């Protein structure tokens, strides 16, 4: 098992290098403004631009630039410096990470708990009004984009511009350490928006997975044993959870992508908004840094999922 995890981690590093390469190529191939021009100020002298290019390493060949970048990232955990502010990308990200973690972890909890409980109730009360209502809303939540749902919620419930002034609106984020209550209330709507789509997918999958499991022979055995219905359902859920776990690894990526939109809509100073801003201003090192960070989380999540599998299903063994 340990060897399996180590092997997966090494593959993960390789995958990160490939991702770095892809983003690198993407931003050199796409027609963006020369970063040196961006930093040179108004009406720059060509000489100044040349000097900046030398400072940024842009005069070297592309493979050399990429090699230098990889060495910095993987040997010194140095993600480079913003073309604009000259700040280190690492510190830019670290500064904004708490907000993003607050948003994504909270949304993940809401996503998993909400999705699973709605799915279980729907599976056990199939074709009831509750089931139809839940599955109908799930379909809506899967279909609407986060930025749209976020804006609608702001127009409805935000304390500044909303029809019903219930929750703090955009830009109200406060760090947890400053004021836990304000932190919590300011994140209620963002959590909901970010979790909605994934929770809806989970609910639908859990519903079908549990409905199938409850038809299995071993559920009949459990009933024939005289187990209380609660214990019978628990055995069904236990069997139904495996396909859901696989989906969790995939949905982490969707969640991180959604964080960019939600942070932008709700004006939360997190890594997502940083990514959005740096894409708009072609701040390549920052984009590269945020993409690598997101990729790392997705790769880790999938390793965790695969390892969890071995514990969830005794028939799965890694060597």
């Amino acid at each position, binding site marked *: 098992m340990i060897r399996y995890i180590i092997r997966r981690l090494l593959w993960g590093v390789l995958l990160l290098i490939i991702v770095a390469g892809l983003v690198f190529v993407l931003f050199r191939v796409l027609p963006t403004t020369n970063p040196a021009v961006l930093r040179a100020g108004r009406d720059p002298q060509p000489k100044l631009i040349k000097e900046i290019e030398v400072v940024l390493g842009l005069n070297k060949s592309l493979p050399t630039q990429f090699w230098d970048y990889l060495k910095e990232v993987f040997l010194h955990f140095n993600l480079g410096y913003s073309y604009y502010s000259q700040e280190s990308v690492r510190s830019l990200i670290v500064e904004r990470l708490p907000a993003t973690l607050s948003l994504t972890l909270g949304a993940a909890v809401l996503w998993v708990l909400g999705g699973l409980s709605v799915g279980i109730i729907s599976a056990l009360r199939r074709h009831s009004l509750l089931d139809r209502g839940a599955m109908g809303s799930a379909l809506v939540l899967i279909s609407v984009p986060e930025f749209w749902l976020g804006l609608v919620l702001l127009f409805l419930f935000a304390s500044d511009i909303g029809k019903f002034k219930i929750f703090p609106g955009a830009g109200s984020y406060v760090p947890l350490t400053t004021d836990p209550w304000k932190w919590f209330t300011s994140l209620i709507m963002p959590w909901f928006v970010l979790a909605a789509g994934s929770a809806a997918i989970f609910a639908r999958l859990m519903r079908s997975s549990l409905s199938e499991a409850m038809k*299995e*022979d*071993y559920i*009949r*055995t*459990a*009933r*024939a*044993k*005289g*187990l*209380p219905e609660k*214990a019978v359902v628990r*055995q069904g859920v*236990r*069997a139904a959870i495996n396909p859901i776990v696989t989906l969790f690894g995939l949905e982490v990526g969707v969640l991180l992508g959604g964080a960019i939109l939600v942070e932008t809509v709700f004006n939360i100073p997190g890594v997502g908004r940083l990514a959005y801003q740096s894409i708009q201003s072609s701040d390549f090192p920052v984009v590269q840094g945020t993409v690598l960070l997101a990729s790392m989380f997705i790769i880790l999540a999938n390793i965790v999922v695969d390892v969890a599998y071995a514990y*969830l*299903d*005794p*028939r799965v063994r890694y060597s």
Partner: protein
Amino acid sequence: MSAAEPLLRVEDLRVEFPSEDGIVHAVDGITYQVQKGRTLGIVGESGSGKTVSSLTTLGLTRREGARISGRILFEGQDLVTLPEEQLRAIRGNDIAMIFQDPLSSLHPLYRVGAQLVEAVRAHREVSKAQARARAIELLGLVGIPDPARRVDEYPHEFSGGMRQRAMIAMALMNDPKLLIADEPTTALDVTVQAQILALMERLQRELGMAIVIITHDLGVVAEVADDIAVMYAGRIVETSSTGQLFAAPEHPYTWGLLKSIPRLDGPREEELVPIPGTPPSLINRPSGCHFHPRCPYAQPDHARIDPLLAPVPGAPNHHVACLLEAEVRERLWAELAAGATPEQALAEVGVPGAPA
């Protein structure tokens, strides 16, 4: 309860499932009883209602929207009307059940021992350690080697025969008075089948429980059953003691079952005669005698008249639901037993054959 009162008495049990295509008459007025410590074999093709009738005994068809009528008297209590919570206290406790496919009937994600332990703890206030000791004891009793180690294994680590042994152990955890075995050997290799049947016989001798064994295989019931009920299209068409049924079967369907299995003691050149046709739909059942479309000896009015289960003359414990004259049946079986085909038997006995 008097000494003559059977452990289980099923009276005019009917189970119907409403479906989109119409009402499925899965069980259509069956009556049978099982005495303490005895074994009843229920024989029939798939779709004859034998599984539904036993699932209904445990109340397991209730949640599928079944309409149930009649009585299922277990130690004087009517299980048809018993509230779910009281029925649950009987399930797996006084009445236990084992199923056809032991792999799919065991939960793949729980250790075998845990599945046995919960069977006890659903009914008794015992510690986990006590329940585990009981599980190991019973795994040993059903012949699983090294039970103290295997109790912690998962079902996929057991062979097919061992899984069925584990299922039997699970069923016996609470010393049931009645064990219902639904096709317990069908999914197993032939050599393992014999072992499982021998095991069930031994356990019955040692523990004194009654057994209802459901099967499509007359060979299985011949081996273990004291009495046999033959089911067709949701009804019992013949019932008697096992010896009587094999010596003097009365129903053409039973003849068909007997003639379609190979016999070692019969003449070599004797051909197997399959029962023509397929089991009828339980939604639109044939009129009259439900077996008449497949019966080589059916007469024109058999499509109109519904036969009742009635005692065979001279054999009060032998019942049959057949419209043929008793004397005609006797002569037909005599011909068939001597190796005649149904056509030859018909010609010999001189009754007109079924309309083609």
